[in-house]
């Protein structure tokens, strides 16, 4: 018997056909949906929640919700965009709930602390010439996870997911000035944590 995770994904290459399959509750369509979109969405969930277990829960909840409510999808955006929004909202809901319980605004941070450990960095490559390798992406993931939750959420929403300042502030239920300050704090921490992956021109001539 064919395993659902071993199916030929090309049968649903066309998004319209995938959508029709999902509406028929076809098992292969559900499998294709997961295989096509889940990897990117897991990264989104992890970046926002900062906790692998919770990110997996977000992903699970979101995909079940999406499949169960596929008839409500009106097709005004792509399936990927629709799923992205579901995952974003699910993760934010959990984040807000957690913040109300445990996270303080003045969550400790120190721009000079928590750089990516040297032992994990490949010194054999030249930063200016290096494309974003898998290892480098993992270093960015790691640096994001090291950020305090409130700073990470601001950075992920604004700088990675591309929300406007207003949209990100609304999503986090804070004012725009607070969002901007958190964003700058996050960037400053990341400038330190990822220093080996960004160019470092000689500033003595400036």
């Amino acid at each position, binding site marked *: *018997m064919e395993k*659902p*995770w071993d199916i030929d994904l090309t049968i649903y290459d066309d998004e319209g056909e995938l959508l029709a399959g999902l509406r*028929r*509750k*076809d*098992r292969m369509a*559900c*499998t294709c949906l*997961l*295989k096509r979109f*889940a*990897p*990117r969405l*897991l*990264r989104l969930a992890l970046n926002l929640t900062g906790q692998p277990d919770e990110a*997996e829960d977000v992903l*699970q909840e979101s*995909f*079940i919700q999406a*499949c*169960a409510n596929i008839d409500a999808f009106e097709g005004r955006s792509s399936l990927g965009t629709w799923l992205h929004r579901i995952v974003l909202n699910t993760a934010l809901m959990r984040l807000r709930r957690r913040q109300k319980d445990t996270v*303080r*605004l*003045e969550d*400790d*941070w120190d*721009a*000079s602390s928590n750089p990516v450990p040297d032992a994990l960095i490949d010194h054999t490559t030249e930063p200016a010439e290096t*494309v*974003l390798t*898998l290892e480098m*992406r993992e270093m*960015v993931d790691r640096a994001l996870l090291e950020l305090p939750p409130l700073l990470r959420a601001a950075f992920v929403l604004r*700088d*990675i997911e591309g929300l406007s300042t207003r949209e990100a502030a609304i999503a986090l239920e*804070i*004012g*725009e*000035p*607070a969002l*901007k*300050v*958190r964003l*700058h704090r996050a*960037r*400053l921490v*990341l*400038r*330190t944590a*990822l*220093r080996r*992956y*960004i*160019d*470092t*021109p000689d*500033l*003595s001539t*400036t």
Partner: protein
Amino acid sequence: MPDVPTLQTCPQLTALLGVGAENESTDEGAQAIADHVTACAVCMVAEAQLAALVDRYRLAEDSPLPNSLERRLLDLMLNQTCKPSEG
């Protein structure tokens, strides 16, 4: 070797950002930080480089889901939302 500011740790920006929460909600505090970042050569370069790195991060291909997670999610989705398989 001349003593120059490091690219990643501009002391002025660090001071402006502070550690406490007091300046989080004021327009003036946010504006002062934004003004500094757009005027400071160190910060301008560092922020542009961070932005370039983030751009590459956004475009990077994602790793497949771990097998165990993929199978768990598939089992749940297929059992809860799909028709039973035929045969």
